[in-house]
């Protein structure tokens, strides 16, 4: 009895050690290309700059000339968003996307399947998804460590756009929870698409389409409140899909666009989607591996 306990403890330890090593290696990998790294972080905010000017020009026309809201921009509302809100929204979406975007994950998996590299996961006692998850966590962590300062700087500069200030208490907690779930959702969703590579070789085209949908339906492009509700209630349809949790939901929570019970409802649905994609990706993995081995690699 005690033997198996000791055994399971030691395999847990060795597993943990393996994960830790993977983690370290992934961080190392990330730090290799330095020019890339520093520039990439600052680049993220360039589109926001354009947005600031574009929306000012848009609001300018509908505002009462000469008045300004507390952000210093023109007053007036579009779909419940004041000018400051609009800019703040785009800034917050950058944050949610920093958590939920998984560059290269889908194509990486598809390529590994197509090139046969995935075989090494079948031979070695290591789980591919777990590996990838570790890699992503490591990458994101390093990113935040290094990017925290430029991010903080940008947000300090843009403080005025946050007309209602920063959220407090439960809204803040829900916000952070939604970010973590956004990470999980983004990861398992992209895994799922990549794993389709076991059945269809040309997953790249699918990825394209996914990215497109992601851009539009996640709220990355504009706040979902702007979607028309008649004659077809497009907005309701889009809000039904999981994509909004990748960008829109955390931003909306932060800006107070989601209130009260809806906060927890939203979080719960987000959690459901995460679990859904975890399950699907596991199923696809095991089915795919069986099919793959059947072909003799």
């Amino acid at each position: 009895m005690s033997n198996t306990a000791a055994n399971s403890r030691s395999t847990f330890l060795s597993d943990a050690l393996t994960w830790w090593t993977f983690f370290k290696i992934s961080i190392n990998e990330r730090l290799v290309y330095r020019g890339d790294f520093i520039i990439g972080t600052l680049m993220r905010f360039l589109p926001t700059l354009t947005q600031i000017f574009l929306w000012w020009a848009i609001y300018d026309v509908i505002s009462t000339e000469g008045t300004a809201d507390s952000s210093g921009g023109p007053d007036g509302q579009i779909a419940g968003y004041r000018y400051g809100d609009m800019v703040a929204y785009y800034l917050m979406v950058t944050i949610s996307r920093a958590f939920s975007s998984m560059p290269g994950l889908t194509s990486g998996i598809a390529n590994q399947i197509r090139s046969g590299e995935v075989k090494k996961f079948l031979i070695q006692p290591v789980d591919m998804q777990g590996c990838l998850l570790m890699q992503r966590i490591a990458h994101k962590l390093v990113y935040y460590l290094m990017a925290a300062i430029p991010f903080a700087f940008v947000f300090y500069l843009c403080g005025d756009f946050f007309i209602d200030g920063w959220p407090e208490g439960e809204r803040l907690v829900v916000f952070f929870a939604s970010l973590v779930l956004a990470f999980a959702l983004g990861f398992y969703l992209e895994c799922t698409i990549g794993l389709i590579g076991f059945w269809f070789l040309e997953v790249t085209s699918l990825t394209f389409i996914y990215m497109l949908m992601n851009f539009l339906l996640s709220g990355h492009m504009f706040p979902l409140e702007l979607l028309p509700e008649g004659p077809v209630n497009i907005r309701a349809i889009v809000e039904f899909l999981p994509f909004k949790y990748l960008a829109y939901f955390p931003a909306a929570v932060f800006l107070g666009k989601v209130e009260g019970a809806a906060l927890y409802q939203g979080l719960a649905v987000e959690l459901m989607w995460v679990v859904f994609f975890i399950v699907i990706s596991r199923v696809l993995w095991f089915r795919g591996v069986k099919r793959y081995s059947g072909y003799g690699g």
Partner: protein
Amino acid sequence: MPIIEIKNLTKSYRVYQKQEGLGASIKGLFKREHKNVHAVKDISLEVEEGEFVAFLGPNGAGKTTTLKLLSGVINPDSGTCQVMGFTPWERKNEYRRRFSLVMGQKNQLWWDLPALESFRLNQHIYGVPKEDFDATRHELCDMLDVTRLLNQPVRELSLGERMKMELIAALLHKPDVLFLDEPTIGLDVIAQHKIQEFLKSYQQEQNNTILLTSHYMKDIEALCKRVVIIANGEIYHDGSLEEIVDKFSGDKVVTLQLAESVDQDALKDLPNVIEVTPPKIKFRVQREKVGAVLSGILNSHAVEDIVVEDPPLEEVISNAFSAAEAEGKPQ
């Protein structure tokens, strides 16, 4: 007037050190350590038109770097070089039109398209008139027996077939000088042989100048009269193959075929026995001692046949490399 003249050519690379560990990686974001690798050190060489020269040397010796310098792909740190009267790294179009570089480990043909399309592209890039192009193409494809493969996408060809296509692509414009970097690497014996035969007859026919680097002795033996051994970025030896064998093989290999009646055991305590397959015994003897040892054996045993030969070329060359490395190491 030699067609290739190299004088005191030198080239070093800066290689960045990647340190182990997390802390070092973070430091590496801000400052990187590097060291200089001297790929080619003060090389001087002359090649006459029509020669077929081999560059031989251990990995990292500087053979490929030398070829790249001669092709103008990289610039040297110092020294001069003239090929057909041109300085390669000026990359004049008149020069580039008259030579070719083929690298065995990399291919320049479009992967998804038939080789013929890549040939056509070269035709336009080199400005080869249509009749010349067609004639040369037919000739080369016949010589290498690949005409039936011309319309297959390159990715579907075997390694050997692909190499043949690469060679054809490089020869369509009838270059006067050809640089070959390990052209037969990774090929099976038959493919290697075919390419060797092709190169031999092609060179004799066209009388162009060819520089070849290779690890395969068969290539060298079959094709080149002159062998340049490069090690540690320097020329270690420049001469014929026989000279190298003489210089670097200390031993001879003797194979004796003994008469039935002789007792095998008596000969077992010969030093340096390689192989015993009765009635034959193969063993090594130092060159100078061959005569003495043989006469000793002949006096005491009945021998039916004697063969005295050089050790395998690979061994000789490997001795040469080791000697070169030893010399190159800092004292």
